[in-house]
């Protein structure tokens, strides 16, 4: 048994794909039509055969309640590892990304939290 997938809940798959590729820099891996929605995944260009991130549409209403509760509390839905949070923060600021937490040290880690425009806070982590 292996871990090959993780997911983020998104309110719009097209908007999510644009943000996660054009802004964050991931690349599309798989796209399969499944009726109203798609099986849609992206991967890091640094690990193209690594874990796939599913851009998961919220067809189940309670998922929206959960997403909104996390978002309003500033809690990240997930986190991505970067080699330099400050550098990534400046790059993304220049692209118009909003941050609820600027680069902040927490012991050995530096964190920042951004808005993915699809209903989520996403954490960037440097260790």
């Amino acid at each position: 048994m292996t871990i090959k997938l993780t997911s983020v809940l998104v309110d719009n798959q097209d908007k999510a794909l644009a943000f996660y590729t054009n802004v964050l820099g991931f690349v599309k891996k798989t796209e399969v039509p499944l009726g109203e929605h798609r099986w849609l995944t992206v991967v890091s260009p640094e690990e193209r055969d690594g874990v796939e991130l599913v851009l998961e549409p919220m067809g189940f209403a309670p998922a929206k309640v959960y997403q909104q509760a996390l978002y309003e509390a500033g809690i990240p839905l997930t986190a991505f590892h970067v080699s330099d949070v400050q550098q990534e923060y400046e790059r993304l600021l220049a692209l118009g990304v909003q941050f609820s937490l600027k680069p902040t040290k927490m012991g050995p880690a530096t964190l920042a939290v951004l808005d993915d425009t699809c209903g989520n806070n996403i954490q960037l982590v440097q260790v």
Partner: protein
Amino acid sequence: MTFYHTRVLEIAKAVYPNDDLCRRVIRSKHFIDHHFAHSINLHQMAGNAFLSKYHYIRVFKSMYGRTPHRYLIEVRIAGAKKLLQSGMPVTQACFSVGFGSVTSFTALFKKITGVTPQTCRRKALQEKQF
């Protein structure tokens, strides 16, 4: 300030109250990251943090969840994995990242990655053919 931001600051203050100590251990981690391919020892790693060896091991483990020696092994294995995936022979990769013995390198590689160095290299070369 969001609820999460408040919690991050609370945890940082409670768990990592000594900023100077954190900075010194982070500095020693960077030393490992940049010199892993050389023959470095605990004395040098602890020296970078200006700590006694025993205190250094305790603080490093509390911050990174593993001992400095274990971290050094992991960094070396990660380096070896990249070299093997580029096609470098196993023995050459082993010595390139600072291991002194192919036997112990192979055992550690398998333990950490789940596959032998030979398998890692072979899979990467096979994928390149497609």
